[in-house]
């Protein structure tokens, strides 16, 4: 009798759970899963995105990708941009968070100042830094009588550095807040115990702070990596993928191929590789970093 009532209750709960997940499930399916499958389907065709003709060509698009120099170069730029961002943003965000957590004066002001750039659209950020490099900083150069090269977007060799500065300026404050929240949740007793055991500030940082921040590190590393792999809007208003093709990211390449180049099928194949890469990177990072997480 008791068991029957328990099973009935379980069924009722299951129904409630099901009703609760239906809206999200539908939105997720219609907005993400179906387009993904459609994209895969288009990637097996030679569709130009406009005409009625859509010939099935099997895996030809995928085979062509391996010989496509532009595709490989755009991946190479994206990988360099991602690695640069992941390292710089994590280190800087963590250091700023530690600094703010150490009880410095005007903590709230700094926190707001660092956070504000992430509220701005990446398109605006790109435009701001284009003006910064081409007008503002050279004017300061002239005013100071110095001769620094600030035209970072104007040269294929320096454009990556310029974009990293712009992107990190925008996002460090955001990830810093996540680290700050993580730092504030580390129990003070752990530091106390480490201090009693004779650990100095550096040892406390590496043996208490870092292990306790592992969940935040997982979030930040995965977020920065996947975000950087998808960079597009920053490029649109700043370098437009140039000079030449020097800052063409994989998304930018996909868009210009599929839409401007009228090779929708081929562009869809690029999209599929990007999705697979995003999944793979996120999976490796989450698995790898989860193992390092500890509980207080």
């Amino acid at each position: 009798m008791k068991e029957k009532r328990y099973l009935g209750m379980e069924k009722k709960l299951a129904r409630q759970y099901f009703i609760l997940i239906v809206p999200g499930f539908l939105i997720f399916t219609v907005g993400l899963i179906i387009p993904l499958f459609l994209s895969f389907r288009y990637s097996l065709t030679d569709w130009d995105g406009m005409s009625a003709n859509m010939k099935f060509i099997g895996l030809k698009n995928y085979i062509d990708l391996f010989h496509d120099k532009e595709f490989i170069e755009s991946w190479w730029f994206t990988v360099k941009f991602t690695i640069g961002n992941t390292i710089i943003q994590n280190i800087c965000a963590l250091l700023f968070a530690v600094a703010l957590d150490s009880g410095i004066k005007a903590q709230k002001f700094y926190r707001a100042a660092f956070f504000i750039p992430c509220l701005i659209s990446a398109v605006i950020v790109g435009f701001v830094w284009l003006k910064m490099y081409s007008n503002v900083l050279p004017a300061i150069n002239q005013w100071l009588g110095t001769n620094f090269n600030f035209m970072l977007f104007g040269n294929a060799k320096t454009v990556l550095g310029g974009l990293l500065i712009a992107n990190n300026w925008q996002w460090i404050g955001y990830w810093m807040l996540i680290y700050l929240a993580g730092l504030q949740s580390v129990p003070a007793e752990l530091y106390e115990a480490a201090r009693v055991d004779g650990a100095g500030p550096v040892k406390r940082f590496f043996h208490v702070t870092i292990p306790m921040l592992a969940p935040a590190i997982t979030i930040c590393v995965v977020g920065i990596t996947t975000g950087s792999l998808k960079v597009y809007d920053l490029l649109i208003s700043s370098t437009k993928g140039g000079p030449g093709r020097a800052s063409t990211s994989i998304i930018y390449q996909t868009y210009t191929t599929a839409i401007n180049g009228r090779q929708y099928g081929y562009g869809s194949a690029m999209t599929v590789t990007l999705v697979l890469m995003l999944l793979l990177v996120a999976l490796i990072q989450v698995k790898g970093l989860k193992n390092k997480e500890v509980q207080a």
Partner: protein
Amino acid sequence: MRRKVVSAMLLLSMMAGLFAGCGSSTSESTGGNTGTAKEEGTEASDSSDDAGDEVTLTVLAGQSTTDAGIEDMIDEALAEKYPEVTLEWECVDWGNDFQPKMQQYMQSGLPDIMIGKAQDVATYAPLGVLGTIDDTYLDKGLDAARENVTIDGSTYGLVYNALYQGVYYNKTMFKENGWEIPKTMDDLQKIIDDCNAKGITPFASHMVDTWSIGNVTMQFMMNDVFNHTPDWGDQFRDGKVSFSEDKNMQTAYQYNKLIFDNTFPETFSTEQTDCDAKMVLGEAAMKVSGSWSIQNFLDIDENFDFGIFPFPNQTGDSKLIFEPNITVMTSAATKHQDAIDKVLDVLTSDTELATEIYDYTKTASMLKDVSPTFENPSQEDIDKYAASGDIVDVTLGNNQLVWGGFQEENAKYIASWLQGEISFEDALKASDDRVGASKAN
């Protein structure tokens, strides 16, 4: 068990989505393209319902930098003559967003009116999605406006204004230094050398905008390639000529280097507005550009005195480039042909509106008996080239080697070559490799 049910549902919905998507994509595409002719008859009968009724027409306007704002002028004029017709505008940048938007609308149904460039007619008309424009309106335009928007005897675009492209030059600077308008490359080189000797930057340029590289390259190609081989693009696709082997095409590409070597060192960080400002402020003597710069020139200094000449070619017979710009196209599947005709009527018969638009955009008229009233210092030069027949329509080149996916991409390789990232041969080969994308259809 529950997990299995949810998994099965997820899988089923994915499969359903896949099949639904596959099915619809074909039918929609077919409907969007081939269905138009069939639907035309139905819509023609529907269109009579428009008379007197309030109608809202959708408009996709692919605008050049000069055009933003003309939509308000058109709205105002339309409201005065045909208050029952209103326009719902979607204004986008022609270079970046017009084609993506069209691609999107090809699947879901085109807007009633599309405003693009003359070269768009060659892209979309063969797909059967554009309606023909009635002679009533076309007859109000210049005959020259019809040529490149007519396919198999039917005209699909109403060309409203035109841009001129060539080398804009600072008249005062030319006078002060005793420079004559160059006809040959030697003449131009002498001016460049004199500029350099006097510490004047010969050319203003803004290569951060890759489109500007693509644009000037087509100007060079028009005078060195298409003027002598009008079907070069078709020959290219037939494998008879190539960028790597054609000396004239190579020369056209090489002119970019001439500009790059004689322009601001920060050209790859300079935008058009800054560049135009430098030109007006006398920091450079010339700028290879188009009428879109006039708006900036006169906004910065209304007294700036400038002229225009065609960029010289190898044979000394280069022509000023003429580009039909604002081109009105209509949907073949529209249900509001009567209302569209009212819009075309306003555009072609309201001379006050036309003058207002030409004066605002600082462009040339393509309507009979309508002339802009703004003071265009380069008009004298344009008239001179027009009188001697030294003007050529760039649509010839643009129709054969399309902008999106070809010229635009080639420009990126030219930029890489100028920056020393790739060799000249690689830049040419990249253009050859892109042959499949050189034509829209």
